[in-house]
């Protein structure tokens, strides 16, 4: 079995702060990590590899420094890594990103594609399903469990707001996985040593066999027209009081608003 896993390098958004004076994002010193849902997806792939023997290829589209997460994937147990990087791919929205990844996938052999549900820097959850559509294969999103019968059938647990669905398929498909569903393995010591001896294949846009108009900014139907920090509403009164007074103030407010 051959599995292609899509991963993305993202800023650790828990570390991002807004500069209170300039109201802009402070990105300096924010660590770049493998997106958590993608890491969950990689773990699912590696578990299939452990049980059934699979060749796991990781692919990322990004800046040259995304090499780092590919090395991390090697150290976890991935067999091959591809870095898709090109100026022509810059400024891509989800449609253009999914197009590029789908075109890259068309150059490779695989039985299953695994991606993360969403990336923490964008939270869109769109690239996986869009990629599946470009490839003409089914998708299952919000994957929390995955089993394989060793022959051809996959059984998948898909989470939703009220519980879950159990779905089955045979043949090719794309799954988007939840980080919360698995605990990704640590990099092994020998893995870390080997990770830097292995070769990351570098692909440019020319490898994708698609017109440039479908890629990057040109291939993106959506345009960001402005970005801004949120303006908070006008704060109301603040009182530093003891508990008795606090209760009086709260009761008065509830009466004013006709709650009681």
């Amino acid at each position, binding site marked *: 079995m051959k599995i292609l896993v899509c991963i993305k390098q993202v800023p650790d*958004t828990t570390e*991002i702060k*807004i500069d209170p004076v300039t109201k802009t*994002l402070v990105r300096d010193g924010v660590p770049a990590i493998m997106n958590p849902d993608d890491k969950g997806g990689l773990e699912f792939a590696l578990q299939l590899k452990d049980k059934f023997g699979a060749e796991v290829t990781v692919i990322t589209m990004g800046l040259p420094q995304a090499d780092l997460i590919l090395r991390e994937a090697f150290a976890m147990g991935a067999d091959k890594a591809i870095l898709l990087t090109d100026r022509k791919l810059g400024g891509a929205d*989800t*449609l253009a990103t999914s197009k590029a990844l789908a075109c890259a996938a068309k150059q490779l052999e695989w039985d299953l594609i695994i991606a993360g549900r969403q990336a923490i*820097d*964008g*939270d*869109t*959850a*769109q690239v996986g*399903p*869009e*990629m*599946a*559509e470009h490839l003409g294969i*089914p*998708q299952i*999103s*919000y994957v929390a469990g995955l089993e394989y019968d060793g022959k051809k059938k996959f059984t998948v647990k898909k989470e*939703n*707001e*009220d*519980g*879950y*669905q*159990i*779905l089955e*398929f*045979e043949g090719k*498909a794309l799954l988007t996985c939840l980080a919360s569903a698995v605990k990704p393995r640590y990099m092994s010591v020998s893995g870390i040593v080997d990770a830097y001896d292995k070769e990351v294949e570098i692909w440019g846009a020319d490898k994708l066999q698609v017109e440039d108009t479908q890629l990057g900014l040109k291939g*993106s*139907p*959506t*345009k*960001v*027209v*402005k*970005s*801004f920090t*949120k303006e*908070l*509403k006008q*704060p*109301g*009164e*603040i*009182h530093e*009081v*003891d*508990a008795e007074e*606090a*209760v009086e*103030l*709260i009761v008065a*407010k509830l009466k004013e*608003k006709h*709650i*009681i």
Partner: protein
Amino acid sequence: MDKSQYKDVYVFAEQRDGAIQSVAYELVSKARVLADTLGEKVVAILAGSGIKKDAKSLIAYGADTVLAIDDANLKEYVTEQYTQAVYSVITKFNPSIVLFGATTIGRDLAPRLAARLGTGLTADCTKLEISEDTKELQMTRPAFGGNLMATIMCPNHRPQMSTVRPGVMPKADPDANRKGEVVDFKVDFDEAKFAVKLVKTVKEKKNTVDIASAKILVSGGRGVGCKEGFEKLQALATVIGGEVSSSRAMVDAGIMPHDRQVGQTGKTVRPAVYFALGISGAIQHLAGMEESETIIAVNKDKFAPIFSVADLGIVCDLNKVVPLLTERLKKEIK
């Protein structure tokens, strides 16, 4: 692309087990405002099996037409079946805007459709407006973990599509006398493409409350600390007729269930009164509750950011305030 060929605002009216979801009414209400600005119509797509009984309710909230796709293939949500159904509506009528709820269904269906249609899609919007000059849809959403807001447009492709989180758009007052029609729509399914088989659906979360529909929320954070602390919040909530909700810190700590989490990765709520007790007011928390009508915050740190959105801020120990307030309200409300 000739944009003049595309008009009207379509809403994917999500139903589960035949029950039209609150987010469908929220979106129809919003679509009404957008369509009135454009001088266009609102059309709700109601897909499922045996779903027509409540179709008229969508009209009461602002739909001019409900397209009912009643087909056994749509009994439960599966991506390809629903994609084919909605795709055939969109390619037949050429809407200019299509809105989906940002639920596990909407966030699975909308990107699949966007790629099939070759158009743009903006996820998890919190604000939708029509630009005054170009009449384009302006979609605003949080980015970078809620630290930044981005306004996005889809100027050269149609339809303009977005998903909107449940609880974000206020519902209109329903008007049972509004005029509109329910029209049947037939889909020729390509069943050969149904590659994924649904084995079973399991409902796990019984007896859960929907904090998004509560009028009063008594919400606790790390300052509440433990299960016993939340029991005191529950006592307060019971007296005042509210529900208990929580910050993510208490969900991560395993003290509160995820379905009671407020915020960017939890639920968006806009109750009449939101009590923020021992919640610092991180930006991801504010994202889920700042639209509440009245916010009452109790925190012992007078510099806590929650005070920047509170209508009434109390700098005090919540452990003292909560029991006293509960006793007092018992007397007030009899």
